């Protein structure tokens, strides 16, 4: 078996035993990348030179580092010195950040080898990766289909074995939905569990960085490396982070898993509903109790989100004005320069959201739209609290459908927004959520979403690992279809 297809924990075992060196993994990884990239296009920038240099340096480094020699890809909205950070946007082409994001710093300190910056919908706004200003990414399971988004590149790179693990960001489902569509594991940690310093801001009260991996153990390993308080991010939670890997093997026996009935209804494909319902039986087999939960408020999460997130984005993206970095269109006066630069630099979806947010915050509409949405957010938080009074974790489909065709939804913003109907409530409540593969429907991966209470990552990972054991679904690969 090629090294690039192994999980990080398998590779770490081999590295520590001295059977292989980091450069062997890098060789295998870049062979794979060169092979797959013409089709998959998961990366905006492949960093082969710096990765090789890093692997050479690591040869004599401490092999007990938690991610020693592991090839990791980083979404292109996280700053890294010495490489471009474009956020999938023309307006940040070119932009070379003068510092590392905290997560990048942590990856480096953990001994990881960063292999590239992955493709994304512009400024993380989108659910298909088609809104990237560079190129769309294709789903490794079926090259005619989208990988999901916005972290579609990070999900596709892991699915195609172009790296063992990757980082994404999730504002309304941007880690979990592409994880679901690409058949990999993806987690959005509790809001504040991972530092956002150096993550380009989209909607600051919702954004969170999280891991992608091919199995639950690798996901926990990467989470252990990136989580924790950061003085540079005042919204990061100040506490001693737990050992997530140590919590993995506690099993699901005795857990109460709530099925959110409202997320199994209208709009969910029958194949998805079947696979996710079957997952409940796996939990029962593993000794958990299944409880049906009604949460009628969740259907209001999507409209609330599409007022709150654009409102925050309209403010965050005001900084792209052609003054300090990025591109500029020349004009005689400064306001014309702003308007021409933003016209040329932003794509259609980003313009739509900036304008929606500006409208929702403008005098006369603030109460009717933005304030109302914030009140609905309170109701969503409360309804989750109620559910967690009776359940340890909750479950639902991650995405209402399997991977859809490229170009299928690009002209219909609302149809695209609906792809996040199951994931958005979790962001509004700031909870941890993950997507794990739970089978195939018509040959395409289906994702099971697990949701935990605030800082309940350990319970989530433990249940997810129990599901892998109980179902035998672990490390799904699109191999046969691609090769």
């Amino acid at each position: 078996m090629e090294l690039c297809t192994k999980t990080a924990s398998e590779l770490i075992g081999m590295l520590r035993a001295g059977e292989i060196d980091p450069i062997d993994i890098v060789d295998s990884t870049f062979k794979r990348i060169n092979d797959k990239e013409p089709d998959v296009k998961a990366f905006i920038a492949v960093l082969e030179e710096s990765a090789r240099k890093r692997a050479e340096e690591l040869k004599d480094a401490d092999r007990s580092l938690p991610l020693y020699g592991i090839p990791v890809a980083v979404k292109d909205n996280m700053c890294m010195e010495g490489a471009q950070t474009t956020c999938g946007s023309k307006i940040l082409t070119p932009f070379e950040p003068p510092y590392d994001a905290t997560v990048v710093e942590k990856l480096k300190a953990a001994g990881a080898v960063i292999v590239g910056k992955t493709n994304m919908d512009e400024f993380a706004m989108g659910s298909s990766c088609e809104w990237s200003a560079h190129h769309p990414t294709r789903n490794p399971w079926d090259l005619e289909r989208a990988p999901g988004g916005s972290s579609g590149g990070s999900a596709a790179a892991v699915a195609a074995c172009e790296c063992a693990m990757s980082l994404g960001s999730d504002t309304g489902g941007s880690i979990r939905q592409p994880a679901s569509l690409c058949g990999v594991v993806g987690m959005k940690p509790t809001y504040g569990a991972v530092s956002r310093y150096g993550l380009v801001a989209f909607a600051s009260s919702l954004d969170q960085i999280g891991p992608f991996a091919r199995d639950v153990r690798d996901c926990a390993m990467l989470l252990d490396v990136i989580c924790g308080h950061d003085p540079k991010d005042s919204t990061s939670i100040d506490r001693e982070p737990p050992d997530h890997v140590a919590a993995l093997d506690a099993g699901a026996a005795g857990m109460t898993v709530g099925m959110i009935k409202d997320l199994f209804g209208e709009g969910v494909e029958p194949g998805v509903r079947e696979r996710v319902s079957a997952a409940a039986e796996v939990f029962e087999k593993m000794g958990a109790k299944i409880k049906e939960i009604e949460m009628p408020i969740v259907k209001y999460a999507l409209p609330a989100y599409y007022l709150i997130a654009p409102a925050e984005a309209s403010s965050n993206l005001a900084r792209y004005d052609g003054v300090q970095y990025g591109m500029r269109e020349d004009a005689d006066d400064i306001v014309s320069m702003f308007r021409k630069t933003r016209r040329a630099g932003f794509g259609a979806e980003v313009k739509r959201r900036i304008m929606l947010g500006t409208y929702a915050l403008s005098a006369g509409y603030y109460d009717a739209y933005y304030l109302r949405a914030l009140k609905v957010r309170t109701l969503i938080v409360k309804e989750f609290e109620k559910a967690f009074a009776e359940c340890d974790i909750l479950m639902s489909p991650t995405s209402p459908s399997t991977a859809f065709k490229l170009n299928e939804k690009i002209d219909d913003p609302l149809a695209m927004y609906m792809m996040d109907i199951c994931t958005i409530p979790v962001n509004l409540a700031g909870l941890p959520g993950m997507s794990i593969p739970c089978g195939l429907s018509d040959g395409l991966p289906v994702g099971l979403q697990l949701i935990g209470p605030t800082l309940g990552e350990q319970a989530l990972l433990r249940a997810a690992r129990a599901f892998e054991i109980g179902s035998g679904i672990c490390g799904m690969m699109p191999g046969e279809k691609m090769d």
Partner: protein
Amino acid sequence: MKLTREEVREVAYLSRIEMTDEELDRMTGQLGAILDYADMLNELDLEGVEPTSHVIPMKNVMREDVVKESCGVEKALMNAPDRFGDFFRVPKVIDEGEGH
């Protein structure tokens, strides 16, 4: 509440995004559809409900007022679209030429 093209023109100006009439027309239709969808929130009784802008308790984070090393002029200016000495240069700011 029906969104008009004139309102969208004003929002585009506030957002500092130049748009053609044709783009304004398309945007009016698309934003209108999203706002119609958002009207679903009117079904809920929100009397007495407090708004949530942040899910974790937010407080000011204070630190000692001590001078630390900063990134330096060269790094700060390395991405400048138009650098003039140690400054970012921009077109003239006063006497805003273009109205809306």
